[in-house]
């Protein structure tokens, strides 16, 4: 501060003799900078930014499209799956029905055979029993006639037969 007087001024900012110089160069600088920025730099940066925005937008729309496609594919897959399941069910049902029908036919056939055989057997059993009964009554009549003849009695064939039949019927 002692040499303020020697320097002429303590604060260079207040040295009015340099003002015109600073202001002149400032104005030149501002014009140059404005020219460079507005003519060269800013349009370029703006173009790059617009370019990027366009790319991003188109990329996003492409992604949207792919997403839609994927959704459609998924829907088609689900539909095919449901169709296949229905088809499989239908086939299973048909096979079951066919098997049931065949089974029914077989069972009916087997039933018919069984009943036929049963009827046959019953018929034969009846025949055998009938013939056995015939033979019993025949033998009884013969034996009765023989017994009566052996006792010397004159046997009336008709009445003997009737009596034997009546007794047999009682016993049966």
């Amino acid at each position: 501060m002692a040499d303020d007087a020697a320097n002429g001024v303590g604060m260079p900012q207040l040295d009015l003799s340099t003002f015109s110089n600073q202001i002149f160069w400032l104005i030149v600088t501002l014009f140059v900078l404005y020219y460079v920025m507005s003519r060269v730099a800013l349009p370029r940066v703006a173009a790059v930014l617009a370019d990027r925005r366009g790319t991003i937008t188109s990329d996003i729309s492409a992604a949207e499209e792919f997403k839609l496609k994927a959704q459609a594919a998924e829907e088609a897959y689900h539909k095919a799956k449901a169709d296949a399941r229905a088809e499989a069910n239908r086939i299973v049902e048909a096979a079951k029905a066919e098997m049931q029908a065949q089974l029914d036919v077989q069972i009916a056939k087997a039933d018919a055979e069984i009943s036929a055989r049963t009827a046959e057997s019953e018929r034969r059993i009846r025949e055998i029993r009938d013939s056995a009964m015939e033979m019993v009554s025949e033998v009884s009549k013969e034996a009765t006639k023989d017994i009566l003849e052996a006792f010397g009695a004159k046997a009336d064939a008709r009445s003997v037969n009737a009596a034997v039949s009546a007794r047999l019927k009682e016993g049966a």
Partner: protein
Amino acid sequence: MEGDIAEMGKFIGVGLTAIGMGGAAIGVGNIAGNFLSGALRNPSAAAGQTAMLFIGIAFAEALGIFSFLVALLLMFAV
């Protein structure tokens, strides 16, 4: 030290002017503190108000710089 009453007064004045910067410091601290307490209450609104924060700080700080400038003028230009 030779007695130069004018020089002494100048330095006392410079010292007094420096107090003004404390006022600016209080102001800036007040703004920042209030902004922070507001921002903590409603953090979603804070991001949009940082410009207002800086404008407020700039206004408060300008007054401190004025006192600093007066101090410099007293020191070097008077």
